[in-house]
């Protein structure tokens, strides 16, 4: 193994289809028009010396190192800023160029410390490389003059020197080593789109400045790491590199946080991760990252990780550490006893959207083939199950229609119920790049998310609707599109069922669905809504991106259908730049759904009642399968409380913290006789568990994740599992203890089985993924390299299906006791229940959940910023501190749910989506009032958690 080094072509690729041929150093080179000479040379294998150029950002032309000579042209132009032209004859090396470059380097080095041996960038320093490349042997200017290098000069303090900024937990900024190449500033602008960095001062005073000469941590910096990646010296360096040293080998793998699925190089020294660097050839992230994937992997070695299996008879006892075999035998005996006593259907399992496809597949196989029922569900139940229902109904399959690259061809971006810059930050950056290029933006969200207005981006329309009225707003948009004749009739006639369209068009045209009629309860200005609808229908390629603000409602599925209706009516389906794009919450939500995690569906979204499909699985697994759908997560809880569901195997999900109405979840878990938690940490659910099977992290196992664009990517093991077994091996161990043979020696064999049984995965294998880097399903005979854009030329189901979307108000209503609406969401630095990110330094950005409340509502209640407040709903109450902000409208409050001591889900209710039982997290009627401290619930919960987490000391056997 060696360190993977992607080629740096110096400038980004040109997109032109016209080709230009020129001669560089006597070699003929043909490249697309618009390519820089620097890039063309690199394509031909010649690396022109450079410092300020790197292909992640546009050419800048400041370092004057990449000069070339062009026959027939005067001077020595910079090759990074000079485009190719037909017939040019270029020389990259000459006496004149050598002298010029050496002179430039001499000047750079005259203001740079010569501590190379002890420098963190030693072995990875472009300045050092360039000094070598130009043959620098001497610096004639000495170090006595003005400089940024030394704290003192001539016995006095050096005003030009600045100390290291170590405020960011993950990287340092050492101004003494800066060569002011602006790569960091440009990466922050062009790649990340945050504009946190600038160059302050002029000439010799120039220096990189976060914000207005603030510390990195105190500035707007979002710690994405792009600047650190761009820096050619040790000016911006990962603290882990400073501490450990340079890596010696690297392995390409996939991030285990959100559904963007960024590809990373895990740069290693032995089995120790030195750093995670975004992989330039990753097709989801194209070399970019966010603070979570880039830096927040410290949880993998956190001291609170549980590394030994544990069991106990009751949750009032302390845990007892046992061997794997004893834990498997204990769990298997409990489950078989429960089935013996209460019936075959009294147990079930939950697959994890954080685990690999192969692991998810095994859990559902264990349930269906081993438990003999279909009581298997996944955490996608509580996030994107309505996407499954809505898109399968209208288009014929449950998946986003595009790849992420598609956004580069989009003219109108419609974001509804999603906050990409916080929850899907790397895609958010790609979207922002397109918006800065001129694409228009419509945001439909109760809250003023960052996208509404951020540097160089301003939404054309922000429809700040009341939570719970998505269907009414989208149907009103459809009303405008139909009644104003903006429908793409040719598309609808060709691709969709015309009679269903007519029914739908007649429905949306009803006066009750007009923007004016619906404004009474949506709160959206009709003029603004009409303009937004017109823009969506007529602004060119229009793409809809949505998240859990769409799905987590009692009408979640209806909203997904309404989105699909809009896309079909305007012909925005079936080509790059358009489409319906669900932004998946977790790394493998798409994959866990694909792998048959839903109780009614086998892998590939095929209903369990279908004889032919079921029989193919029966033949492969050599077992008779139950053809009845099983229980979904909320149904499992209800059945547990009723007494017919007694045992649950939960892989990698903290249902107690993440599911709604915590009191109800506690009652359900308490009613079960055996709860098996398979996780990294003693999470909240484990407080009610009888068996704890320690999990492995994404760094410790092989497998695949499937991201929001259906892209299947490899997860590669870079270190041995600290707990001893990869998660797929744990499930196999449990299965074997229950008498079910699962003979796999490597996850690739599990994928081969998936491919053999699932038509959309038929062409997928580890060999194929290694060869292509990744593949988007469907990947089969018809599409051997996968399918970036779906529904080209026709829908998967045949004709696109329009479905009438009647607005039905949620039964969760505000009233005198609970006059405000609570909605919830995520923040950039933390991830879901926070089990991982809370155990990293990301905590410096978000150490607690805060309740966002509008100044008007706060004043009425006598609440000041930072005060402790009591947040109460019909389901329960908790306390947290207030954050007064106009981001939320009057009448709406908002919080995140990353911290278990806040327990935001004590407040949320049992209401759920009509079709899928996806909980209605996004609408809860609440009251907010001043408080003195934790609620009774919080106190008793903390005490229970403390007692439940005890681990019995191991008693040494006497001699």
């Amino acid at each position, binding site marked *: 193994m060696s360190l993977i080094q992607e080629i740096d072509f110096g400038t980004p690729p040109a997109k032109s289809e016209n080709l230009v041929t020129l001669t560089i150093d006597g070699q003929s080179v043909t490249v697309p028009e618009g390519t820089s000479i620097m890039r063309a040379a690199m394509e031909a294998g010649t690396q022109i010396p450079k410092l300020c150029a790197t292909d992640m950002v546009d050419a800048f032309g400041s370092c004057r190192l990449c000069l070339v000579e062009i026959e027939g042209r005067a001077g020595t132009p910079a090759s990074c800023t000079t485009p190719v032209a037909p017939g040019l004859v270029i020389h990259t090396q000459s006496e004149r160029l050598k002298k010029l470059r050496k002179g430039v380097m001499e000047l750079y080095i005259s203001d740079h410390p010569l501590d190379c041996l002890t420098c963190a960038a030693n072995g990875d320093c472009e300045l050092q490389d360039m000094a070598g490349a130009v043959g620098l042997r001497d610096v004639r200017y000495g170090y006595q003059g003005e400089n940024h290098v030394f704290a003192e000069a001539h016995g006095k303090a050096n005003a030009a020197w600045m100390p290291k900024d170590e405020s960011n937990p993950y990287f340092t900024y050492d101004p003494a080593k800066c060569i002011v190449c602006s790569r960091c500033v440009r990466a922050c602008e062009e790649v990340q789109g945050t504009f946190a960095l600038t160059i302050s001062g002029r000439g010799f005073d120039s220096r990189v400045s976060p914000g207005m000469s603030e510390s990195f941590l105190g500035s707007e910096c979002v710690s994405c790491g792009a600047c650190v990646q761009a820096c050619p010296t040790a000016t911006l360096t990962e603290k882990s590199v400073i501490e450990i040293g340079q890596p010696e080998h690297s392995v390409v793998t996939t991030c285990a946080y959100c559904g963007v699925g960024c590809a990373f190089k895990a740069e290693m020294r032995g089995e120790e991760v030195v750093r995670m660097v975004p992989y330039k050839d990753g097709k989801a992230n194209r070399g970019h990252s966010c603070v979570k994937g880039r830096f927040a992997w410290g949880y993998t070695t956190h001291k609170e990780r549980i590394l030994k299996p544990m069991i106990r008879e009751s949750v009032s006892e302390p845990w007892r550490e046992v061997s794997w075999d004893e834990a498997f035998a204990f769990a298997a005996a409990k489950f078989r006893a429960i089935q013996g006593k209460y019936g075959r*259907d009294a147990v079930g399992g939950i697959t994890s959207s954080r685990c690999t496809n192969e692991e998810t597949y095994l859990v559902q196989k264990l349930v269906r083939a081993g438990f003999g029922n*279909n*009581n298997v569900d996944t955490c996608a139940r509580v996030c994107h199950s309505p996407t499954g229902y809505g898109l399968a109904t209208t288009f014929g399959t449950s998946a986003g229609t595009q790849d992420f690259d598609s956004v580069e061809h989009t003219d109108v971006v419609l974001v509804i119920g999603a906050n990409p810059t916080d929850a899907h930050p790397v895609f958010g950056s790609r979207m922002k790049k397109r918006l800065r290029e001129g694409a228009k933006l419509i945001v439909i969200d109760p809250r003023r998310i960052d996208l509404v207005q951020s540097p160089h981006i301003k939404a054309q329309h922000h429809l700040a609707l009341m939570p719970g009225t998505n269907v009414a707003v989208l149907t009103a948009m459809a009303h405008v599109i139909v009644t104003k004749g903006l429908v793409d009739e040719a598309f609808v006639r060709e691709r969709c069922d015309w009679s269903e369209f007519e029914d739908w068009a007649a*429905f949306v045209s009803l006066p009750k669905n007009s923007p004016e009629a619906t404004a009474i309860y949506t709160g959206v200005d009709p003029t603004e809504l009409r303009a937004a609808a017109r823009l969506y229908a007529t602004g060119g390629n229009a793409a809809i991106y949505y998240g859990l603000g769409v799905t987590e409602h*009692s009408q979640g*599925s*209806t909203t997904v259908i309404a989105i699909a209706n809009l896309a079909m009516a305007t012909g925005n389906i079936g080509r790059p730049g358009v489409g319906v794009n669900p932004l998946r919450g977790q790394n493998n939500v798409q994959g866990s759904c694909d792998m048959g995690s839903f*109780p*009614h569906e086998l892998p590939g979204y095929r*209903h369990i*009642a279908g004889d032919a499909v079921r029989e193919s699985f029966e033949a492969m697994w050599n077992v008779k399968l139950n053809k*009845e*759908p*099983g*229980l*979904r997560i909320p*149904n499992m809880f*209800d*059945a547990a*409380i*009723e007494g*017919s569901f007694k045992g649950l195997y939960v892989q990698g999900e903290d249902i107690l913290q993440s599911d709604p109405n915590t009191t109800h979840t506690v009652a359900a878990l308490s009613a079960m006789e055996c709860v098996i938690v398979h996780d990294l940490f003693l999470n909240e659910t484990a407080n009610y568990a009888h068996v704890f099977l320690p999990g492995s992290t994404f760094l410790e196992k092989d497998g695949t994740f499937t991201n929001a664009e259906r892209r299947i990517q490899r997860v590669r093991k870079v270190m041995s599992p600290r707990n001893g077994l990869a998660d797929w091996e744990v499930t196999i161990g449990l299965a074997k203890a229950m008498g079910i043979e699962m003979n796999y020696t490597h996850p690739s064999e599990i994928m081969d089985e998936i491919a053999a049984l699932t038509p959309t995965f038929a062409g997928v294998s580890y060999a194929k993924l290694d060869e292509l880097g990744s593949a988007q399903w469907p990947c089969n005979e018809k599409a051997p390299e996968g399918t970036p854009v779906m529904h080209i030329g026709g829908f998967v189901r045949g004709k696109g299906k329009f479905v*009438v979307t*009647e607005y*039905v108000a949620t039964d969760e209503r505000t009233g005198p006791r609970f006059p405000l609406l609570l909605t919830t969401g995520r923040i950039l630095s933390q991830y879901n229940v926070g089990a991982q990110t809370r155990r990293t330094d990301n905590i410096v950005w978000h150490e607690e959940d805060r309740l966002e409340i509008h100044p008007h509502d706060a004043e009425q209640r006598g609440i000041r910023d930072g005060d402790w407040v009591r947040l109460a709903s019909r389901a329960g109450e908790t306390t947290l501190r207030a954050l007064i902000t106009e981001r939320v409208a009057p009448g709406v409050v908002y919080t995140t749910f990353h911290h278990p001591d806040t327990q935001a889900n004590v407040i949320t209710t*049992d209401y759920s989506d*009509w*079709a*899928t*039982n996806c909980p209605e997290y996004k609408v809860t009627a609440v009251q907010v009032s001043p408080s003195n401290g934790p609620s009774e619930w919080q106190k008793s919960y903390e005490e229970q958690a403390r007692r439940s987490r005890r681990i019995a000391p191991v008693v040494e056997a006497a001699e």
Partner: protein
Amino acid sequence: MSPDRLIYMANQIGKFFQSQGHDKAVPGIAEHIRKFWDPRMRSAILAHLDQGGAGLDANVRDAITTLKQT
């Protein structure tokens, strides 16, 4: 399982299909329940129907009646 919760869920499904008219709504509701409800949930709602089916909306009641016949 608690009939109240199942009645609520069934009526919620009914409301989605309401605007499609009785003839489409009834098979739509029935198919949805057959496809997505586990057998214990279906038997509980059928048992509730046998006891008079109080609280079920008209289309939903008809849909559950057809479920009983299949």
